[in-house]
């Protein structure tokens, strides 16, 4: 059953043909590892009711808008998935992305650092109506809890939040004369992320500062689904330039010319 087919891992002893690049190439057989799927609907088809979903992005940059809208489409067509917990730095802006998920009624809890913005009406209305639970986490603690989950570290100590309302009930301990709060890892069933270039093995790069939470969320979820602007053959991304190694990515879908949250919010687009 698990017998290794050695022919899949042919070391042809060749060298990278690019001038000046002498790294020996260990080639995979064509298509032996292809994480790409054809459509965003295919990519999110398995997300179940009650899932905990990390969604990349910060403000108007780095949000996988097309993947989020594919989830909203599925919910509108089938009533599923629903009862979702969303983890993001914010809690949706305008009428698109996470705000569209909240308006659709498929979210029951948000874990974030900054839910209140100039255009966060969808969250604010649902929260003040008691329809949505909120777990507020300091931004650096949110990032580190996600990173810790990805690295298999169940808890860590941080000075952030010590003596504040957000550390109430959490264990504290002194190290070298200073007080620290114990925080635990934050895992997810799924991560929906946005990258720029990807290959079928799941290696990713990001455009500008859209990187933000995307690489650490990719590490922290059981299943990571990435939308990419451009699918390239393995090797097209120089190994040293890979930001998210493919080991952290489960599924890829190419979305050429992706929508930008900031642009949609400014245009007052409603999905």
């Amino acid at each position, binding site marked *: 059953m698990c017998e290794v087919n050695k022919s899949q891992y042919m070391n042809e002893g060749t060298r990278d043909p690019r001038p000046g690049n002498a790294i020996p190439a260990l080639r995979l057989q064509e298509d032996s590892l292809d994480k790409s799927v054809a459509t965003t609907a295919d990519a999110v088809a398995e997300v179940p009711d009650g899932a905990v979903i990390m969604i990349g992005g910060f*403000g108007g940059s780095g949000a996988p808008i097309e993947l989020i809208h594919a989830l909203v489409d599925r919910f509108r067509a089938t009533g599923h998935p629903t009862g979702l917990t969303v983890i993001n730095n914010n809690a949706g802006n305008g009428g698109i992305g996470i705000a569209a998920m909240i308006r659709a009624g498929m979210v029951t809890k948000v874990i974030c650092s900054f*839910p209140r913005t100039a255009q966060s009406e969808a969250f604010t209305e649902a929260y003040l109506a008691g329809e949505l639970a909120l777990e*507020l986490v300091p931004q650096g603690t949110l990032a580190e809890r996600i990173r810790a989950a990805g690295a298999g570290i169940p808890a860590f100590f941080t*000075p952030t939040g*010590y003596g504040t309302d957000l550390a109430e009930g959490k264990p504290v301990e002194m190290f070298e004369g200073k*007080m620290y709060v114990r925080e635990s890892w934050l895992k997810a069933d799924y991560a929906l992320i946005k990258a720029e270039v990807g290959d079928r093995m799941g290696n990713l790069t990001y455009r500008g500062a859209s*990187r*933000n939470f995307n690489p650490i969320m990719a590490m922290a979820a059981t299943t990571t689904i990435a939308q990419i602007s451009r699918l390239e053959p393995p090797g097209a991304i120089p190994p040293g330039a890979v930001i998210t190694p493919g080991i952290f990515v489960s599924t890829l879908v190419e979305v050429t010319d992706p929508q930008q949250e*900031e642009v949609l919010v400014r245009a007052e687009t409603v999905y």
Partner: protein
Amino acid sequence: MSETDNPPRKLSNRQIAWRAAQDLEDGAYVNLGIGFPELIATFQPAGREVIYHTENGILGFGPAPAPGQEDWDLINAGKKAVTLKPGAAIFHHADSFAMVRGGHLDLAVLGAYQVSQTGDLANWRVGTSGVPAVGGAMDLVHGAKRVAVVTDHVTRDGQPKLVAECSFPLTGVGCVTRVYTSLAVLDIDGGKFLLREKLPGLSMEALQAVTGAPLHVEGTVADLNVPEDI
């Protein structure tokens, strides 16, 4: 205010930012909080290179691009479009907060609702109603080698913002080391406000009257002089 302060004078936010900017050190890594503290970059003294950090993962960003030239994948923590200076670096959120929480930043400057004489800061919410939002403030107050505050000396209705003990929910305990206000510059050390500078012509009594905790003086108190036309 005493009768000699007629009309009572106070610094504008731009003037407070100008004063804070004079203390930016050459080569420093600095995080400026969203809003008022961001003004400080405008007044960075010539001849000093300061590397600005933003929580969403950039070191070395520059001013906003010209209108119409925005790239919305290059923004700061306030979600405003920025440019990249030569030598800028981009990284993910956990690395960004490792820079903060690991004590690698030289200076963070934040706004405040209240600052206490022991350096406690309250700047994230004033009550328990509405939608709470904290962002990176609780991280920044513990991450930088120096944590400064820029603020009006009093609230809109004249209540002291420099207090013995904060009544609003805390952002951090014992974290603020310097305060630039509309009337004075103070350090916080040993559980005390140490007055360093005050507006010329403003008496100690008048300043103490609008400060919610005792002012201490060690050595001389300098005049707080800033340009009028900024």
